[in-house]
């Protein structure tokens, strides 16, 4: 396989520069959030807010997509666990916005840990150079997301979450012993990206805080791209096209499906099994 290491390096450098540009915009956003924190004080979520959160999740649960379920490692067990969470009242005592930010931090921490573990696997560390570089860059991006969510949480007067999400940690723990090939890793990573994307899409409909919406929306717009790339990579690996996983690629040699496999539907609907409950990552 041909890898243009110099070009890939240039692209990664550009990406890192963009990271720093994006981070420079964060202080302005956070100052708005600090103002909000002073105004709102230590507000606790109203029972009606939590009821609405869980009711909307229950509605979304009626439309679980089979294709998503197939991708989600340990999906059946997870649905059971989530059904338990959905069925009981939320017990966390922080405002719902803070809970959602803490849960987002927990998902990002889990993503960072998982990509780090994946990079330690011999068939990733010594495998396709583009896949490895993507995993490294994506891990770094998730860590930036984690820091941003944590900073926003703290600016609202709450404690930042730095532990992995316990609900989806179980899914990862169950999957890790089964990771034998690159496609196993790609599928697990795709499942986590899908969880992040759909959790954030759902949370956007629940947030009251504008800065939180802006941040989560901007992170969602990146997690979904991670997912798209992973879906395309998985399809190429599955179809014997590993040699085409490179930047730049041989566009003419790509199978037709490469033009559509990354976005199977015109709308990214919400699968309840992929939504981390707000309280699941809350700091108790």
């Amino acid at each position, binding site marked *: 396989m041909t890898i243009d290491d110099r070009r890939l390096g240039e692209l990664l450098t550009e990406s890192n520069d963009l*990271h720093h540009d994006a981070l420079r915009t964060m202080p302005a956003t956070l100052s708005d959030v600090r103002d909000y924190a002073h105004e709102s004080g230590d507000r606790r979520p109203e029972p009606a807010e939590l009821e609405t959160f869980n009711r909307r999740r229950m509605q979304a649960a009626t439309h679980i997509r089979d294709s998503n379920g197939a991708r989600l490692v340990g999906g059946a067990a997870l649905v059971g666990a989530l059904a338990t969470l959905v069925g009981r009242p939320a017990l966390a005592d922080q405002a719902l916005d803070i809970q959602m930010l803490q849960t987002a931090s927990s998902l990002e921490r889990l993503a960072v840990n998982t990509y780090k573990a994946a990079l330690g696997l011999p068939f990733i560390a010594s495998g396709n150079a583009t896949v490895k570089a993507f995993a490294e860059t994506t891990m770094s991006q998730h860590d930036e997301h984690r820091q941003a969510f944590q900073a926003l949480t703290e600016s609202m007067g709450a404690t930042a979450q730095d532990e992995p999400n316990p609900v989806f940690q179980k899914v990862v723990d169950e999957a890790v012993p089964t990771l034998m090939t690159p496609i196993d890793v790609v599928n697990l990573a795709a499942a986590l990206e899908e969880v992040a994307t759909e959790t954030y899409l759902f949370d956007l409909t629940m947030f009251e805080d504008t800065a939180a919406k802006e941040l989560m929306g901007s992170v969602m717009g990146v997690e979904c791209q991670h997912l798209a790339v992973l879906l395309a990579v998985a399809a190429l690996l599955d179809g014997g096209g590993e040699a085409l996983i490179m*930047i730049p*690629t041989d566009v003419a040699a790509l199978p037709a499906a490469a*033009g559509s496999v990354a976005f199977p539907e015109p709308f990214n609907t919400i699968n309840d099994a992929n939504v981390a409950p707000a309280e699941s990552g809350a700091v108790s």
Partner: protein
Amino acid sequence: MTTESNPQLPPLERLQSTTLSRRKLIFTTGTAVFGAALLAACGSDANDSADGTSNSGTSAGTTPDATTGTTAAPGTTAGEEAPATTDGEATGDLAIAQLAAGLEVLAVSTYQSAADAAGSGALGEVPPAVGEYVATALAHHQAHLDAWNKVITAAGSDEVTEPNAELAPVVAEQFAGVTDVIGAAKLALELEMVASHTYLTAIPLLEAPEAIELAGSIQIVDQQHQSILLFVLGEYPVPDVFQKTDKSAA
């Protein structure tokens, strides 16, 4: 809407620099009634009356489309409707929906032009993956347009059938200079960025949860379109740590 684009710039740069003034979007009123209209859109088939009102119903964020068997757009579910206009001018969520629909019309027409050009051989040899992408993205944007028009008409306004007036001439000029797949992909990338940046800008401004979900669900797909286009163009497919909004039309 007013434009802040610089006519001295080449077409693609003008598209990149074009921003539409948000002053024309009146965000202070009309949101609540538009939210009700959003709720009305999907469930209105059986309940609509001649004057455009419908019975209330329950909301579900994701609903299967009974007529097509496919997954319908989020946020287009049952409820009540009412116009969200002030003196004939759209306001609040409705104004954003109309802006979004205008962008989707532009995307549909541009992808259709690309498909036609590819079919006629005007773009040279078109790789199978690119042909598949164009067909898929065209269908996606048509679905997005249909979704927005569904809620717009449920709010008592006319559906949007014309492309965004400020961007359309810039895109047309740019498309006239496209002679190959790479040029078409670069133009498509710009259009997808304008769309997803606009949705991200709009989400904190929208008030109806159903509208937020619809905008977010489209933002995601448009971002994913960009990743594949970047890959085709030989660029890193996830270039930003945080999605930007600098190309937003809102």
